[in-house]
């Protein structure tokens, strides 16, 4: 995204190029232009731009993409950690 870059080398996005059929759906759904397509194969062009929204993985018809998608805000993560440690039972979370 123009003018904004987030932390380097943290995104969990993985693409299995052998499984890729080159349909281009990942390029269509990615709002950060992470992928490129050449000779019927997608590739990861800009990993650090990935915000792990999971749109590409969900829309890949051959499941060639994997990413740890989920709540990504500080408040949501704090709640998640509290729940894992059984300090809070449920509820909370952001944009509930």
């Amino acid at each position, binding site marked *: 995204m*123009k*003018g*904004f870059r987030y932390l380097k080398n943290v995104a969990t996005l993985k693409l299995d190029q052998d499984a890729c059929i080159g349909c281009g759906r990942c390029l*269509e759904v990615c709002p950060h232009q992470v992928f490129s397509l050449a000779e019927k194969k997608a590739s990861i062009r800009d990993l650090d731009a990935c915000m792990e*929204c999971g749109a590409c993985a*969900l829309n890949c018809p051959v499941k060639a993409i994997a990413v740890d998608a989920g709540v990504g805000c*500080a408040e949501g993560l704090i709640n998640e950690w509290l729940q894992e440690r059984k300090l809070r039972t449920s509820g909370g979370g952001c944009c509930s």
Partner: protein
Amino acid sequence: MLGAWKVRWGMGRMNYMVPPGLYAINNPATTDPVVVTANYKMSYDIVRSALEGRNIWLLVLETYGINVWCAAGKGTFGTGELVRRVVSSRLAELVSHRRLLLPILGAPGVAAHEVARQTGFSVSYATIRAAELPAYLDNGMLTTPAMRELTFTFYERLVLIPVELVGALKSVAVIGVVCLLLSAVSGDPVAGMLAFCACLGAWLAGIVVGPLLLPWLPGRSFALKGAVIGLLWCGVFYLLAGGQAWSKWVIVAIILALPAVSAFYTLNFTGCSPYTSRSGVKKEMRIALPAMGVAILLGVVSVLVGRFL
């Protein structure tokens, strides 16, 4: 307009919705396009006003009043709901084509190939912003690179701040009570008042100034950006509140604690940003949260040491 303004300030935000289902905008024929959106009234209004003067079928999904992006993340703007609405609205009998136009930011919830398999309708992810739908339709339903490119402009950040402020009001009350207690314990109401102003400033710096100046603050980490703006606030507060008279212990306390407060709130703005990743926020938090805790603790210790030494 008034409704949108109220919602931006967090008033009645959780039931600002329209009934889900199929809406005919103007006088759509069987060949006219089908646009899909969420039942958050603000989403619905923006889409409607963008499509004014056109004949469109508008399929509104039940997202319980949540916008497309957040609802897609939670799966309510999702494959299952879309398939249900296509079936229950009898869309296949009303239109002769088999194409649904979805917002690109709805893609994290919808598997296009699954929708096609279950309903026979193909999914096209049209644009990010509803305002670009007319251009998309006039462009032969082809997405240009600009329509696929996210932005996070000064104005787009500004409109998100009121609800963040309201959401964090509780913490101001906590700060107030703590400062009041400190004044009572130390028998120095002026110091308590000053401490409250210092914290309030750091709070505002982290919630308002940090997000507004986001692209111009140094570093990639939101916590770091927040700490920088908090440090700037320390300087401003020093000048405003007559810092020349403070002991070195108070100055150390301020430099430690205030940036930590600002950093926490700017870090929380990752929840509003459209480019931060879950793994990135996790990494930041693992480092920043303990650092903030230690900084605030040391700040308090420094004040106490200064008092009793």
